[in-house]
């Protein structure tokens, strides 16, 4: 216990900064992932066979292989086309991974909006994109808040895997720290606490958001 506390105090100049990097990485990759996810979700619900196929293959590949393999492939795959900084290479790899899961979240949410909404909008002369943007998506967005929040927490934890490409986020810093203080177990436990704190913080914020949302959705019929 004393050793753990000791390491905790000795790493106050390292881990909080690393936690911030973890957060930046998570937020960046999730935002990018939402963008990718939205596009892929549209591909999935589109009547165009090719787009549909592209989306299905993409989602299948991502869901069928471990994240660590994807990160490794993307890190070296992207590098052979264009050179990103480590941060962006890592963020992009996570985004491409999260994008597949987020696409399924968005697809589910869009399909959960009553079909009558689209029909009513079309019957008023709105074009498909306009109806999607102004009528369906705002409602789908509300449905997708809880699973998106969940995905955010998963993404936070998954970001630890970009330590593999040498990024000094929480887990990467933990590895470095342990390799220099020879206190693996205790160093890792300290890192674990940082993650736990971040996850608990987010679960808390998420619950608040959901509660606020459910107050709003009382307005739904």
């Amino acid at each position, binding site marked *: 216990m004393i050793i753990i506390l000791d390491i905790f105090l000795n790493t106050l100049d390292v881990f909080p900064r690393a936690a911030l990097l973890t957060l930046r990485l998570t937020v960046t990759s999730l935002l990018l992932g939402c963008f990718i996810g939205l596009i892929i979700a549209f591909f999935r619900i589109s009547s165009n066979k090719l787009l549909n196929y592209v989306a299905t293959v993409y989602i299948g590949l991502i869901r069928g292989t471990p994240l660590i393999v994807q990160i490794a492939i993307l890190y070296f795959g992207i590098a052979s086309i264009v050179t990103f900084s480590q941060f962006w290479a890592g963020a992009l790899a996570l985004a491409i991974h999260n994008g597949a899961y987020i696409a399924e979240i968005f697809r589910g949410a869009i399909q959960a909006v*009553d079909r*009558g*909404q689209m*029909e*009513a*909008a*079309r*019957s*008023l*002369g*709105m*074009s498909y994109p*306009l109806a999607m943007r*102004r*009528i369906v998506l*705002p*409602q789908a967005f*509300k449905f997708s808040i809880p699973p998106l929040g969940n995905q955010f927490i998963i993404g936070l934890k998954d970001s630890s895997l970009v330590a593999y490409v040498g990024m000094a986020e929480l887990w990467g810093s933990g590895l470095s720290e342990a390799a220099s203080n020879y206190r693996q177990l205790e160093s890792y436990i300290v890192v674990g606490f940082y993650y736990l704190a971040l996850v608990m913080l987010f679960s808390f914020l998420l619950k608040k958001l959901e509660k606020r949302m459910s107050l709003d959705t*009382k*307005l*739904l*019929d």
Partner: protein
Amino acid sequence: MITISNLVKSFGPQTVLQGIDLTVTEKEVVVIIGASGSGKSTLLRCINFLEVFDKGEISIQNKKIVPEETNLNKVREEVGMVFQHFNLFPHKNVLENIIEAPVHVKKMDKAMAAEKALQLLEKVGLRDKAYAYPSNLSGGQKQRVAIARALAMEPRIMLFDEPTSALDPELVGEVLQVMKQLAKEGMTMVVVTHEMGFAREVADRIVFMGDGKILEEGPPEQFFTNPQHAKARQFLNRVL
């Protein structure tokens, strides 16, 4: 106004509309009745091009509509539709529901659209609910808002698909009242309904459908007192 000829529509193996011919003239009120599953909703949805039909022709205002060539959004601006389940936009208040299409489709000025919306709400008796959200309205109020929303696009024809059948009985009257008023003002209307009283009082013509075909049509007096087709007699016996 609307001319439909030889309209055929299938869902998979099932042919739901088996060659419909129907003409609706200006300011006419046509009421379509028929048993459940006879194709009434499908016909209405075809007129608004919410369903893609397989064969046949629909002309509106003497213009033949070819779905691939015509801007269907423009056509739908001219044809208002009211649904059984209202389909109000739950994330928008009553006023926003009504001005949504005028502002974003017709690019009408927002203030002007709102002013007109308030007039329409006045007309359907809901002026005081302009800022309420759909979830806080009764079914009858929702449906009246839905009618106002459709009218806000200034359509030349209004289609109603069982507008009162999702309502508690005591709320049916207020919606029918608004529809009667509309008919009196000369709106061209095609109404699918099970309200025989309304049909008798307001319709210029009754169209009786069965098995995807129009089995009989004529003025309400004649239809209700002396139905020709056996199925029509059977149907009336059941509902009257």
